[in-house]
């Protein structure tokens, strides 16, 4: 049996001092909790997880990115204020804006000891310039193509990756298509009976690109 995540966390903290680790809870019945690593010490932690004799997580199975947009969390607190000289309890709603970030998730297993998974994740500072993370390819070679894929589709730059290029899209491509706010190119497909949303898109498309027309009647109304 593998140690619990708390034990693993405390042992990492013993081995890599100054490492800041959080346990990310998972409410689903799968009970797959994960460790949130700070990107400064991620490489050292990765090496520890791989080489520690009790863990030996030598097999990094799945590496993937997740995009979390800016969120607004509404909180309602009761505060006491004086209304017309009388003290009353009033609900006050505060809106807290949590800036968005990109996340890289690694699923680790042990082939030597046949246990797992231990899930580790790292978060970028933001979704633009700060979208950088340390590459774990030096620890697990299997991350090589998968980190390239995250770079291609999510735009996380992995420092220390041996060959960080686009992998699925062509090199000239500029967008990060798996991000939640990606806007697809306008290559609207002609439809015989467009309606609702599709009709709106069709009208926009046909006025923007008359050379690709064919839907004269549609433009007229």
């Amino acid at each position, binding site marked *: 049996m593998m140690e619990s995540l708390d034990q693993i966390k405390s042992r990492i903290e013993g081995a890599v001092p100054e490492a800041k680790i959080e346990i990310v809870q*998972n*409410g*689903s*019945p*799968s009970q*797959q909790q994960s460790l949130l690593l700070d990107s400064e010490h991620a490489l050292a932690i990765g090496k520890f997880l791989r080489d520690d004799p009790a863990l030996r997580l*030598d*097999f*990094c*199975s*799945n590496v*993937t990115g*997740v995009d979390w947009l800016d969120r607004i969390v509404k909180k309602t607190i009761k505060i006491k204020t004086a209304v017309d000289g009388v003290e009353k309890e009033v609900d006050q709603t505060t809106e807290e804006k949590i800036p968005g970030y990109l996340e890289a*998730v690694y*699923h680790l297993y042990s*082939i030597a000891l*046949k246990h797992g*998974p231990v*899930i580790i994740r790292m978060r970028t500072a933001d979704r633009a310039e700060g979208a950088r993370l340390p590459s774990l390819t030096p620890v*697990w*070679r*299997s*991350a*090589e*193509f*998968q980190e390239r894929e995250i770079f291609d*589709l999510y735009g996380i730059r992995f420092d220390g990756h041996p060959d960080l290029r*686009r*992998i*699925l*899209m*062509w090199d000239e491509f500029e967008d990060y*298509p*798996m991000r939640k706010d990606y806007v697809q190119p306008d290559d609207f497909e002609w439809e015989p009976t467009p309606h609702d949303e599709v009709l709106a898109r069709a009208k926009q498309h046909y006025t923007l690109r008359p050379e690709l027309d064919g839907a004269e009647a549609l433009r007229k109304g």
Partner: protein
Amino acid sequence: MSATLQTLEAMERPPVRMTSRLEGELLEVSMGPQHPSTHGVFRMNVALEGEIVRKLKPVFGYLHRNHEQIGEHTTYLGSMPYTDRLDYFCSMSNNWAYALSVEKLAGIELPERAQYLRVILAELTRLQNHASLLGFLLSDMGAWGTPLMYAFREREKILDLFESLSGARMMCDYMRFGGCRVDASDEWLARAKQIVDRFPKFLDEFEELILGNEIVIARTQNVGTLSADLAISAGITGPMLRACGVNYDIRKVDGYGFYPRFKFRIPLGEHGDTYDRLMMRALEMRETIEILKQALAQIQPGPIVNPKVRIRAFRPPVGEAYGRIEAPKGELGFYLISDGGPNPYRYRVRPPSFINLTVLEDMCLGHSVADVMVILGSVDIVMGEVDR
């Protein structure tokens, strides 16, 4: 000396040495995406010294059809037919991997008969996948067509089974969260049993024709050797990992489905070369037949769907889950994040054949360009899964 002369001197090219061969000159060749033996639209940029491969960079994405993004835009059930098209040889295994992940995410139990049906169908898939792979691999070696014809003859029989059960030859879309879509009749099970019982005869014939063949041995032994350490570090799974002698089969390790109920052995290789990878498939088919025989004997009538699952308007609780199975090509996993809505927030496929290609360059270096095709063939890739 005038300025013009200096420039001319600088422009003078180094003398060309006329030797019998181009020493140290590398020739860069782009193989694919249209190439008769790249198994689809796969491309490799190869630097050759004469005929020897000195560098190899795979180029992906020619079949990148945005499976993951479409998965995030459709409902949980809506993604099920898309999983058929991942590894289009093995739609049943893909269905199972996805259903397993969703069942983990939502905590769904399965009735007994559904578990048996899943095992039977996944193992039938493994049979036809491995048989076709051997055919393709021998095609790459120059046995043009004939072994493939034999393999496809057997594959058609299994596809007939799939078709009579699910309605489609390849894209079965058979499994559902908490069960299977349609029940197998007794006649179907009897026919499956008949095909399984006759399969060893095909294997005997095939192995006799092929595996002892001198050309096959010369083309595969000590070609594309992969060490166990590198294989583990590079996340290689499936028959390719076991060919290196690493005993890791998710059917045994995770014990998902009803696999712990069946007696079967895990074939292991010794050298990690192409021959071992080829043999691994042949031996695995024998073990698969054992599993199928047991499963077909043990299966009992009963319900095939968990009645508590609301398949329409399916909304799993907030959270995430990673489920994996031993697909014919390796570890096929699905990583799902649910935000409580009808669509997954994140839908990720862990494609075995994509990750198995990580070591393609390591295996091919120093071999001739003709061997690259054989090594690539032995990895067993399907582009639908590599690029998704």
